[in-house]
């Protein structure tokens, strides 16, 4: 099982180009004119969005497991 992650954006690097949303297989990211939005419940931790970002604006942090 791959580690479950939360995808986070560095807003200072992000151009809101929509590429991450375009490559996401599960619509876990939406890029609006006003900002970037991540839907944890849809994310499958595949990291495709992180690799695809042309500027490296996305990164992953391990998802904390609730005790």
């Amino acid at each position, binding site marked *: 099982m791959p580690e479950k992650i939360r995808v986070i954006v560095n807003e200072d690097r992000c*151009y809101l*180009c*929509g*590429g*991450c*949303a*375009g*490559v996401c*297989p599960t*619509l876990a990211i*939406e*890029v*609006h*004119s006003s900002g970037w939005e991540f839907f944890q419940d849809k994310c499958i931790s595949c990291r*495709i969005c992180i*690799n*695809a*970002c*042309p*500027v*490296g604006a996305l990164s992953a942090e391990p998802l904390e497991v609730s005790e």
Partner: protein
Amino acid sequence: MKEMKYDVVVVGAGIAGPIVARNVAKSGFSVLLIDKKPAIGTPKQCAEGISIKVFDKYDIPYDRRFINREIYGAKLYSPSGYELELRYKEASGVILERKVFDKMLAYYAAKAGADVLARTEALDVIKKNGKVVGIKAKHEDEPVEIYADVVVAADGVESTIARKAGINTYAPPHEFDSSYEYEMLIEGFDPDMIHLWFGNEIAPRGYVWVFPKDEDRANVGIGINSDNPKTAKYYLDKWLRENNIPAKKLLEINVGVVPVGGFVKDLVKDNVLVVGDAARQVNPMHGGGMAEAMEAGTIASKWIVKALEEENLELLKNYTTEWWETDGKRLEKVLKVRRVTEKLTDEDLDLFIQILSGADAEKIAGGDYGEVIKALLKHPKVLLSPRRITLLKELL
């Protein structure tokens, strides 16, 4: 809640969207074209080069307001610096100002009768009894429901509306390129030509481009496979450093992801059509998609008009059929070529460009690729390499 009703709503005013909106409006149907950007065409996500043939073919005025300059060919550079120049006597392409071009395409749609709303973001589809009857959108801060008989998803690489409508636009990560581009001051390159650098260390799977805009201004960009662990920005900055090109006069930074394969199988679901980047209708070799978007938009609008005239939305499915029989078939062949060229080593690229920089350049410029491959196959360094022979034969 504000409500609107149109025959057709088109989401996205890139290239495909305005072509559809213009053509459908010309036939007398009511059309709304929306775009989430406050200024259509801005920011650009493009190197701005296009064949000169598209203006006649798609009935677009050859307007100097959006044509920066005419281009007479291309110069290709191999990893070790061998050069191949393909120069035509007459202009073969143009470098556009996309910010003006896109806005003018929307203007032509508006002039033809379409309504156009900038800063209107499509958020979701509206479904009734399982069928899409319109879209939910937001115009500035005001929510709006737009009802339409036909919904066109021309919403770019994200293809949010297409996917929410149930059209499968998924493509695996290897079928996307990550792209990064500076519009910058740069000197020392023939401004009548586009310039392309190839090499697995320079731009894995893709290339670096210089597309001149003025004598000393150009789009300087890169596309690499999007599943690469390093970023497109990393590779472009490295190339600039290694070529001693100062990156200190940057007028714009443009970023995007380009679909270079994984064409959408079913382009229509009930009354929803997907066109352009959203449908992955992009040339997989060079990553250009404007002409492909124009072609798809033309085919799509033809069937939308017929379906509305005959009040038979089943006819929309003919868009899928016709696209796959024509441009889809062509692009599938190009995709095969890309998959072969992906296997080329830097030594292969050096050798091929070296061989072709001689007598065969005229044939390449004429677009006779079969003859070019045959010429490569005759060279001793190719003949002695079974791997190269196999690769080249796959291209024939």
